[in-house]
């Protein structure tokens, strides 16, 4: 129905006169900002001006029990924001998973599609058969990114994750500290040349 598509679209023209929404309220949080990883492992943040647009601004791998196994975002200075974005997107993931729970396992589509759009970002989801979730946050200004590209990025992510799981020294459920995975994620966050 045409009106239903308008609902989603209705949000965008409003962008100019939006109220000071959740993101600004976040900045008012009182506690000291936390940094998760030592600086040495952070990739050099690619500069914003260099490319046309990023492929992804945040990539997260979430365990079956809904805690993060891996999360990496490009503007590292506001990492917590992405934590919140990804965390709240899990509601949608859960909902989508429970909705397709009846479908046959082998016919199940792993790609969950757009989870929800926020003011500045679009959040996409993907769930493996073992209920490990991949969440990718994309800049909503990046219109060049098609659904198919998102799909292939998720597939790459899934392959890389499978490689990690094949590592006998990796304990399922632990945080992912893998150079190969880092590199792969970095390549996804790099500018499109």
């Amino acid at each position, binding site marked *: 129905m045409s009106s239903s598509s308008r609902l989603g679209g209705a949000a965008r023209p409003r962008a100019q006169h939006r109220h000071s929404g959740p993101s600004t309220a976040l900045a008012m949080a009182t506690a000291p900002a936390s940094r998760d990883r030592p600086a040495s492992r952070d990739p050099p943040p690619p500069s914003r001006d260099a490319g046309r647009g990023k492929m992804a601004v945040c990539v997260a791998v979430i365990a079956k*029990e809904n805690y993060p196994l891996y999360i990496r975002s490009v503007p590292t200075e506001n990492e*917590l924001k992405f934590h919140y974005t990804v965390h709240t997107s899990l509601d949608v993931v859960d909902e989508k998973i429970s909705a397709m729970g009846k479908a046959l396992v082998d016919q199940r589509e792993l790609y969950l599609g757009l989870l929800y759009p926020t003011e500045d970002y679009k959040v996409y989801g993907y769930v493996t058969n073992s209920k490990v979730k991949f969440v990718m946050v994309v800049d909503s200004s990046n219109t060049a990114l098609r659904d198919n590209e998102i799909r292939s990025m998720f597939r790459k992510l899934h392959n890389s994750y499978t490689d990690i799981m094949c590592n006998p020294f990796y304990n399922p459920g632990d945080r992912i500290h893998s150079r190969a995975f880092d590199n792969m994620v970095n390549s996804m966050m790099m500018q499109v040349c």
Partner: protein
Amino acid sequence: MSVPDYMQCAEDHQTLLVVVQPVGLVPEESFFRIYKRISAVSQVNVRDSQRVLYIRYRHHYPPENNEWGDFQTHRKVVGLITITDCSSAKDWPQTFEKFHLQKEMYGSTLYDSRLFVFGLQGEIAEQPRTDVAFYPSYDECETVEKRIEDFIESLFIVLESKRLDRATDKSGDKIPLLCVPFEKKDFVGLDTDSRHYKKRCQGRMRKHVGDLCLQAGMLQDSLVHYHMAVELLRSVNDFLWLGAALEGLCSASVIYHYPGGTGGKVGSRRAQGGSLSAEAGNRHRPGAQEVLIDPGALTSNGINADTSAEIGRAKNCLSPEDIIDKYKEAISYYGKYKNAGVIELEACVKAVRVLAIQKRSMEASEFLQNAVYINLRQLSEEEKIQRYSILSELYERIGFHRKSAFFKRIAAMQCAAPSIPEPGWRACYKLLLETLPGYSLSLDPKDFSKGTHRGWAAVQMRLLHELVYASRRMGNPALSVRHLSFLLQTMLDFLSDQEKKDVTQSLESYTAKCPGTMEFITLPDGLKLPPVPFTKLPIVRSVKLLNLPTSLRPHKMKSLLGQNVSTKSPFIYSPIIAHNRGEERTKKIVYIINGFILEFESLPAALSLPAESGLYPVTLVGVPQTTGQITINGYHTSVFGVFSDCLLDNLPGVKTNGCTVEVIPALPRLQISTSLPRSAHTLQPSSGDEISTNVSVQLYNGETQQLIIKLENIGTEPLETLEVTSKTVNTKEKLYGDFLSWKLEDTLSQFPLRPGKIAIFTVNIKVKLDFSCQENLLQDLNDDGISVSGLPLSSPFRQVVKPRVEAKPVNPQESSKAGDFSHVKTLEAILNFKYSGGPGHVEGYYRNLSLGLHVEVEPSVFFTRVSTLPATSTRQCHLLLDVFNSTEHELTISARNNEDLILHAGECQRMAIQVDKFNFESFPESPADGTQFANEKQLEEERQQAKGLEINSKLDICWKIISFHKYFVEGVLNQLVLEHLQLTPNPIICIHLFFQIFFFFTHADHRQLICQNVCAPDISIRRLKLVVF
């Protein structure tokens, strides 16, 4: 219209809005008491009909919202109830005037109004009035409900008349254009006669009639009107009103489908009427004529009042799916108008409530997402909080707990936003607490003790930080300490080193004012915060009970109870091996074993574990105060000013199978101190006993020393019994005579020993080792060619087999020999003190204290060679002893009837002693005749010893060191003489045989010669000669 009502739901469309307001000085409490009673009358069955009226009461309603009353009639204030306090008739006119002023505020829309006057009595109150009710007081107003019902009926009459009036408008009449406030200026100068304009008027009026029908309880009629309105308005592209008509359609359908209500709290408000309304909905319009309509068949020329024309066609109620589609459509139309933001927002909220009931969370989230972006105007802080809270509530309702928590948290932050002059930290804290489930965080540390942490640590940590901060700003330091400890305990693995430092520093600064306790903290709303024991700070790897040191360990007296099994009772002891993960800075840790038994006094131990220390053993000591069993089930720490009781059961990775301690009655404690210096050398007795004290002494061979032992009772019980035993351990040396001897009687006479008293116990130490040289030494000294054997009988073989040592240079060896002689031998013995007293003695327990005695025996004199020469008298002979002084001092040797012989250091001299010969037969054959010796050899040894003693007493050889003034060392050598003789068997036999034979001749009764070999080795006599003296 700018104030959204976030609590709105679809059913509100069928309600009549009544405002209840106080006028003048009405106590708030009384007002709300009356308000509560009034609002209880929320639905009324109108007499003579099956219709039900629903009333929505508000005590506050912005008049600008009222202006939208034509757009959606449920926004219109139709009734006003004013409550006033009037005590005297004088005030009455004034009060009544106020009531009229109040009426004017909503005047344009009011159907009817009432004034409830409390406190006024008398003439004025007597006169019957419909619009005014008098009550003597707030307590005496039984008829309030009845009054309200009457009031509602009067509202109904007006409503019904309006409905009929509007619905029966002739199509030819000019229909007024209904419009919302912001539209008014748009229609100025419009051609009112155009077909387009007329249609617009018709459509809007249809929609309005639909609203009225819905309010009047005619659900099916309203559906018909809405359908017609939709068609009319769609054709003229009147989007705002089309949206309203669609929404009306949705509302009516929702009311039909979900009689239980969609509003949650609102639903519960009318819960008692829920079943009634459902029934009412079903049996609405008796005769069950289904109002059916074919939208296509609607006449577009004017409003046809007779809806029955459409009866018998398709059902006009929307299906649940359609409701959502229509809502979407309506909202998209509203979205076209900036001024209809509130309407759009409320429609979104209503749609979400419907979707929540339909359990279509995904679509609901889309509506909510849209609602988030609806910009109203510059909201006040309070409105923002309200908005975020309601978003949170709605997300919660559709099962999006994380999103809900997210918005609630933002609402909480908003409460304490810097722009607010007086931040509401209390509200902020309360809201933050409500977000906990959304972040799967409970404040019970037990939930985190099982296995690894599962949860989104980054966001949980942030929330905890905020809780800490909010509680601190609230002025509740105990709470912030509790939250901070929880953060430290549960998120330790996720904190970086710097964060750990920060957290611990702030914790320490908080606890400086308010130490952390193990009490539950109960919040005003009843939530209980369990205590947070720091089981990870430090980490305890293993726990085990340590037995008491042996000297304090109680033993059961076997004889007393006839028990063979001695109960080895572990007293009270427990070590904690603490492991500090090391991330922390240096900190003070105080452990106290806490048995959680009152009668247990634990001794605190303070220690400071450095950061990144490895495993660090900690021993904790406690003293039980009563007898019985004590179970050690935890420990108590104070880390960073937070007191924690850590139960061993809750420690991850620590296996303890019970730490049970049996406590027996008190026993005295004995402490011993001796006159001798303590020894570094510890005895390692085979039996596993531990020696509490070790003393050592250096003695010359043959020396005697007194050991004075002070026995001090350092316990609290009197010392009643004492038994002393001694045991010589691992001595390879052959020891002669009593090594240790004592007289216990002197000591026991001082008993019972009161606590703190001292008794003296004296032990004599006698060292008598072999004074002979070792074989090789003997041979080496044998350099002057003097034959060993003084008699022909003496071992001839020995001379033969002995290698000659002349080849060796004599002099250079002297020095090395001296070294050999100074070879120190050690003697070790254990003195055991078994003691008991007090109540423990009654129960049959005793304690055992051991004193280790380490004696280093330095060689003094050696008898390098022994031989005999016959003396002038046949009853005597000369014993020739070659004496070697191995000490570094000058010493004298004396024997009975002999001159002292002075020996310089390292000197060897021969001394001759004239001795009487013995009659060995006069000895008893065996001192232990009755006892069965294991073998003959033993018997023989026994006999020899007796003989040796006899010889000793005859010879009485002594030595003393002259230069020692301080210690006059005196040694008794006699034992060794015989021993030496015995060790070199041949000379003994010479003497012995000689004596024997002589004996027989003097008693010449016998002509035969009886030879007796008294020595152990077999001897062969090769030459026997009779000598007649």
